[in-house]
């Protein structure tokens, strides 16, 4: 337990979350560092493609939509958190 924000601990757990998302998407570990957020979002859109016509909702589309939404949002938040924590580790004493 600490009394202040711990940027290194924050960066560590957020990086684990992003790595977990990458594993789910089937990205090789050796490619993690060269994968950008654009690569990840485009991959999700391509793999979990759905249209927005709710009158045609069926169970399988619901499932695909859910994967798309959960992965996109989770990855974007993890990326945002990592950007922040990395800056704090490198610049804030």
């Amino acid at each position, binding site marked *: 337990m600490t009394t202040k*924000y711990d940027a290194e*601990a924050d960066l*560590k757990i957020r990086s684990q979350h992003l790595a977990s998302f990458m594993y789910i998407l089937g990205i090789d570990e050796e490619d993690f560092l060269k994968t950008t957020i654009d690569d990840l979002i485009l991959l999700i859109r391509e793999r979990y493609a759905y249209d927005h016509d709710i009158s045609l909702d069926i169970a399988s589309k619901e499932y695909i939509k859910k994967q798309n939404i959960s992965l996109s949002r989770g990855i974007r938040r993890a990326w*945002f958190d990592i950007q922040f924590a990395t800056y704090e580790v490198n610049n804030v004493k």
Partner: protein
Amino acid sequence: MSSDKRYEPQMSFDYTKWVYDWKEFARKSTKEDGPESVAISNYLFNVVGIDKRNIATGGASDYEFVIHYPRPALADSYGQSQWMPILLIQALMDISPKKRILALSGGLDRFRLKPFQEIYNSQIYFLNNKKLSLYEKFQYENAPIEYGVLTQQYLESNYNFTFDLIIGWSQDMENPFIPVDLYLDRLEKGGILIIQNSSDSVFLYQNDTQASPVWQYHQDIKSRDDCHMYHIPLFYGITIVVKQ
């Protein structure tokens, strides 16, 4: 109900009989919240250099620098719906004061936590995340709280470190690697988990379907047999979970 389109009481709340000077506290909070939010957004985008696309993709929806509460400076007949969830949480504390509180979203709840500490002498813990860092940098000065910090790693590995109130926001529950069960397992018997914004957050997704983490964590809570869950779709929506 009158024939008006909107039913609102003519008077705002009567603060005069309250022991704690909520009116002054609320006025001060509102005055300080705006400049603090501007300073936070400046830090995030111009100093840290956060990708601006986050505004549309989860940044702003994490509420680092947008609406905070309370917002009592609206006209008397306007702010009621915003005040209700605030007062509901206050009422819960009043009925059953909580001594050990874990706040998941840092400074986002500072306007609640500070009075809790001052009125009920509650012990406050913050979860280690960027919102805590922003609180320390930009919000602590105007709303100082005595607190301890728990890292996510510490929380996950210390099963016996429990609380009687955990207060967070919907986005705190939407990470698939931090299931809502983690927080519920850290609640003492009779403890309460408060999830704010649990109605509005669904609009960030596709609200005509069940394809949303908001739906998912409510389902997860419903599947437990040791909790009662109450969802109140008032204003931004609030979900209250009481552990048996």
